[in-house]
């Protein structure tokens, strides 16, 4: 075997060593971002929890801005880059097309993440403008530069993945169609290319404007273009998460989808329809027509939701068939009771499916429709929705796959196995309480992105919300504590395994 490769004794994969190093470095950086974003999450939640109300407004907005970037951006995208390299190189017994570009992507992304964090932390009064960075709010040029560098780095990584797939095809490292998991990663990559380009189109003029090189940047244009990036970036996460569901179904119980075409069609539906579902962000903006708004918040969204429903049947179906083949055929649910619940990767997978489907997915359909969105937009209900999809669904899936990446790629035995069994449950139950608490509180009108909704900082237009809303905010707060324990356990187990895990 070539000196650049090793053979995995467990899976039999031929592993390209430069790809393996890049998977490791992106994975570790993702976990560091999760740790930073998680600490900020706790501070933000303890501020929104009215009984505690921890931070002063400026600190709240600073940590909320960075919580958004570190979680929605840096944790998930560094991890996704690792997934893309794993899917393109490892799963296809292939070499990474150009590892140097992998390092270029990493350096750009890391520089971007550091610059964004440092600019906000050092001058929050100027730069704590939140994840949306709405024009005409103006941050220092370095803030936009950080975000753009990160996005460009991520784009380089995605293009490197596509080049790696081309090489695999050309050098015939696999037979037949692309494996389903790689196909899912490809769907995520296709969505990512468009998304990141929109990010550049939204933020590059914003950078020029903040540098004073252009006199103005139209707020309406910014919002429309930003949301082709802002919401679509979360659709990359959804698609990557589903690809990981199929991978985890295979790794945990040996499950493969009952009908490959069915699952592949669902991924194609994502590519075609999922991005325009972000139209609900611009429902009251005059820049797009009513017909466009109605089409995109109904029919286009239903087509994307159909894809999620197809996956929601295919993945558990794959698990059930695999377990039935192991002999658990009694009644309707013997396979479910006898499933390997003590494997944290399996429990993380099931919790990811449940939280994404029942909390994030259903509320996405409800809150994404034009009529209901008008009612809940800018309430904390929406924050509850995406804490069901991304914070619960995607994060749990990525936590689950980590329990396989540690022994297979880092070649270390996972430490603290008993704690690992409980880790997904702490995080899953906690984040579900966060999501549900926020969604219910939002229905009582409690707004999102506010440091003080009881006194509004002493403003004369204070408003008395129904106290029931604050009961749900307390549920969110308790959930945040549980989720923080689960997140901390995950970081401890991952870092502990890297430092102290037995070498395999």
């Amino acid at each position, binding site marked *: 075997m070539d000196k650049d490769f090793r053979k995995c004794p467990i899976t039999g994969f031929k592993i390209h060593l430069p790809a393996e190093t890049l998977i490791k470095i992106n994975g570790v950086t993702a976990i560091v971002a999760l740790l930073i974003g998680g600490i900020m999450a706790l501070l933000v939640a303890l501020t929104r929890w009215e009984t505690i109300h921890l931070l002063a407004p400026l600190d709240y907005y600073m940590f909320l801005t960075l919580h958004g970037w570190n979680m929605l951006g840096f944790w998930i995208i560094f991890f996704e880059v690792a997934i893309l390299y794993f899917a393109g190189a490892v799963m296809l017994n292939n070499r990474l097309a150009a590892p140097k570009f992998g390092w270029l992507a990493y350096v750009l992304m890391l520089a971007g993440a550091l610059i964004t964090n440092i600019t906000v932390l050092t001058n929050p009064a100027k730069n704590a403008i939140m994840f949306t960075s709405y024009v005409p709010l103006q941050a220092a040029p370095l803030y936009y530069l950080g975000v753009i560098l990160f996005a460009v780095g991520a784009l380089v990584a995605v293009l490197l993945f596509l080049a790696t797939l081309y090489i695999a095809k050309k050098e015939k490292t696999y037979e037949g169609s692309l494996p389903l998991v790689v196909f899912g990663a490809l769907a995520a990559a296709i969505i990512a290319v468009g998304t990141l380009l929109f990010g550049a189109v939204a933020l590059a003029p914003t950078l020029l404007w903040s540098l004073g090189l252009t006199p103005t940047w139209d707020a309406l244009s910014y919002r429309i273009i930003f949301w082709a990036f802002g919401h679509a970036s979360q659709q990359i996460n959804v698609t990557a998460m589903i690809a990981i569901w199929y991978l985890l179904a295979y790794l945990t119980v040996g499950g493969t989808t009952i009908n490959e075409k069915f699952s592949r069609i669902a991924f194609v539906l994502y590519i075609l329809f999922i991005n325009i579902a972000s139209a609900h962000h611009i429902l009251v903006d005059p820049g797009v027509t009513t017909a466009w708004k109605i089409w995109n918040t109904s029919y286009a969204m239903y087509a994307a939701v159909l894809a999620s429903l197809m996956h929601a*049947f295919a993945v*558990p179906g794959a698990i*059930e068939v695999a377990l039935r083949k192991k002999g658990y055929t009694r009644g309707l*649910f013997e396979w479910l009771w006898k499933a390997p619940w003590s494997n944290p990767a399996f429990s993380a997978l099931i919790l990811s499916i449940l939280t994404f489907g029942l909390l994030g997915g259903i509320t996405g359909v409800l809150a994404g429709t034009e009529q209901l969105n008008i009612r809940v937009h800018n309430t904390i209900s929406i924050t509850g929705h995406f804490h069901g999809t991304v914070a619960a669904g995607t994060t749990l899936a990525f936590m689950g796959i980590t329990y396989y990446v540690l022994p297979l790629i880092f070649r270390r035995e996972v430490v603290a196995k008993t704690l690992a069994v409980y880790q997904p449950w702490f995080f899953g139950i906690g984040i579900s309480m966060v999501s549900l608490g926020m969604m219910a509180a939002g229905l009582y009108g409690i707004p999102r992105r506010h440091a003080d909704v009881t006194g509004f900082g002493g403003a004369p237009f204070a408003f008395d919300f129904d106290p029931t809303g604050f009961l749900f905010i307390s549920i969110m707060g308790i959930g945040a504590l549980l989720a923080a324990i689960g997140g901390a356990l995950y970081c401890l187990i991952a870092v502990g395994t890297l430092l102290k895990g037995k070498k395999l």
Partner: protein
Amino acid sequence: MSEEEKFEPRGTLALVFIFFTLFVLLYILNWIWLSGVWELS
């Protein structure tokens, strides 16, 4: 039950049916809640 039927994902189909029913109920409840009908009574 035939050997082939033993390995069909019947449990998943049942779960999908249960969750779909819950979804429809949730949709109706949410709609009623948001419409303010409860507050009128």
